């Protein structure tokens, strides 16, 4: 559906995107995971044709460059900034953007109704959006991007600064769109979002794609062993073979198969009050790939 080949973009001395190669299959949800300033938004704008690349190419569904209006008609975009008119109502915003996408008459009315339902804003459709909460504005921002049922939807940090309730609503909306077969490119710096929503995740840092695969494959390739931490109820028998040291009554060790290791310890007579298994996640993958924590980057 979308192919980015050798994309490069600089702003003066800053290299924002440095040779990005990505391919998104139809119906797939691809996440771009990276810290702020990693080049995710610039990559999206290059994909949309809003920015011209210094090098490389963008091709959409074999149709050509997104600078072509006919190609652009198949794109939907929800920018990181709230790209809505606060002096207009949700209904007026949607009708305006719908008309720009070529919708008219009943098609437009139907699309507006569906978008409002998706955003959960049917009851507030006539109110000026300046009176909306941040979460409601985010939902409308997404609705404006999906109004014309685009084949490819590019979402740039669509949950930035929203409350948990609105975030869940947005997740459900995006999952519903994915279920309909919409191809989605989703940028975020929250690993939980990438893990929940994306079929594949591209780890992006300093304008480069460091790895791109399914979450499980990324964990397998770049994640460390799960870590088991056991709070002991009593001192272990002297004969017990322990997989790690005991500190402050806690046994801590890394292992590939935590369930098997725990069964073996129990067989050796160890008793514990509580245990915790810490599995690798995308944070661990990012740390492994960059040497930095995703949150601290």
């Amino acid at each position: 559906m979308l192919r980015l080949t050798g994309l490069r973009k600089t702003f003066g001395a800053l290299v924002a995107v440095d040779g990005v190669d990505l391919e998104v299959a139809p119906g797939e949800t691809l996440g771009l995971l990276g810290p702020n300033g990693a080049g995710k938004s610039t990559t999206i704008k290059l994909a949309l044709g809003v920015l011209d690349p210094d090098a490389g190419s963008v091709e959409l569904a074999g149709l050509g460059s997104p600078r072509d209006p006919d190609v652009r008609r198949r794109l939907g975009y929800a920018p990181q900034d709230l790209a809505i008119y606060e002096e207009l109502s949700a209904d007026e915003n949607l009708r305006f953007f719908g008309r720009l996408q070529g919708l008219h008459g009943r098609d437009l009315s139907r699309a507006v109704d569906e978008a409002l339902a998706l955003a959960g804003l049917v009851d507030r459709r006539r109110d000026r959006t300046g009176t909306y909460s941040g979460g409601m504005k985010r939902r409308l921002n997404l609705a404006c991007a999906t109004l014309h049922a685009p084949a490819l939807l590019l979402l740039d940090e669509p949950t930035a600064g929203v409350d948990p309730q609105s975030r869940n609503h947005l997740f459900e909306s995006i999952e519903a769109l994915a279920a309909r077969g919409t191809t989605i490119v989703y940028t975020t710096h929250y690993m939980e979002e990438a893990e929940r929503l994306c079929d594949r995740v591209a780890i992006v840092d300093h304008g480069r794609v460091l790895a791109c695969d399914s979450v499980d494959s990324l964990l397998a390739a770049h994640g460390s062993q799960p870590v088991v931490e056991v709070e002991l109820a009593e001192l272990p028998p002297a004969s017990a073979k322990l997989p790690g040291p005991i500190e402050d009554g806690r046994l801590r060790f890394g292992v590939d198969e935590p369930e098997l290791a725990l069964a073996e310890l129990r067989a050796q007579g160890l008793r514990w009050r509580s245990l915790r298994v810490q599995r690798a996640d995308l944070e661990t993958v990012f740390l492994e790939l960059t040497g930095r924590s995703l949150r601290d980057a």
Partner: protein
Amino acid sequence: MSTIWTLAKKDLLLLSRDKLALFWMLLFPFVFAVFFGAIFGGQGDGSSNRIKVAVVQEGLDAGKEAFLARLDDRPVELVRVPRAEAADLVRRGKASAYLDLVRVPADAFAVFRGETAEIELGIDPSRLAERGMLEGFLAEASFGGLREVFTDRAAGIAAARKAREDLSVGEDVPLAQRVVLATFFASLETFFGAIDFTRGDAGGANPMAGPAIRTVDVTRARSGPLNAYDVSFPQAILWGLLGCAAGFAQTFVRERSSGTLVRLWTAPIGRSTVLLGKALACAIAAAGIVVVLLAAGALTFGVGVSRPATLALAIAASAFCFGGVSVLLSTIGRTEQANAGIAWGLLCLLAMIGGGMVPQFVMPAWMRQIGAVSPVRWAIEALEGGIWRSYSIGEVLVPVAALLGFGAAGMVAGMLRLRRI
């Protein structure tokens, strides 16, 4: 075209909800027009058509008050003030002149006894016309008593009798003169009683009241504005148009900063279409501003339309021009603050040299020539052409062509700059 209209409609809807923008586009120009119209038109308390004269109040008796009363029906406004203030008022320009009635004879026939009025008139030597007028009014008032007795028989009889009685007791008139005057007043009393001289031929007007002056209104052929508002409203309308151009330019920058512009860029429309939508909205708003302000001017101050077709052409050309100017201004400055500063700086300069602040007719010739580079100058001329200059369509074509040129240049320059954004 429907996409351009969709974009324009959205901007007009946003404008209709922006109270501050509406203030600058409609209310401020109206206040401007009223303010400058009142200044140049001398409107206000209505006293400006009368000559204000300070009268020294010390020593005013019944005779002097009667003298002053004869000035009531003249275009003179009398203000009684202490002697110490009278000359000072004239010096400070608060009064045109001052009067000190040093001596005013008590009765109409005093002149036959050798008594004359003595009046001090203080006035700036440069005010020759007012001085002449006031001297005329004062001379008329001095002889007003005589005129009264010769236009009213009963008053004449009473006055002649009283003059004769006063003469008989008076000590200051020489005996020989007193005898002559006594005979004269007695004859006069007899004359007043015997002959009705107050009727003209065939019962016409009193011949003693002076010449019968018949005033005929002859209005001069119109070659200028009917009133000051005819001048101030086109000027004010231009401020509305400048506010409109600057306002729409800012909406473009606001779209950039708020993120909606990126969404517009990703829609299946050309970038120039976005700017053309703004230009169309600006042109429609500009035409609306002209119509609303002219209607307000017509309803409140009688601003007229001498050539409707010319005015319609002028409005259309002005709207196109400032729509084009707004396109160019849209591409200046990356922030709203920067855009507003630069845009208003440029527009104020254009207004200054184009007659938007001070009418061009009060400018020196060289400055009027410089004004030709400002669309403000041509828009004012075109609008005035329809309001009071009575331009034919042929005569308004030059300013209209200039406006269309400025508009097209602004649009092209704006589109070229847009490529670099």
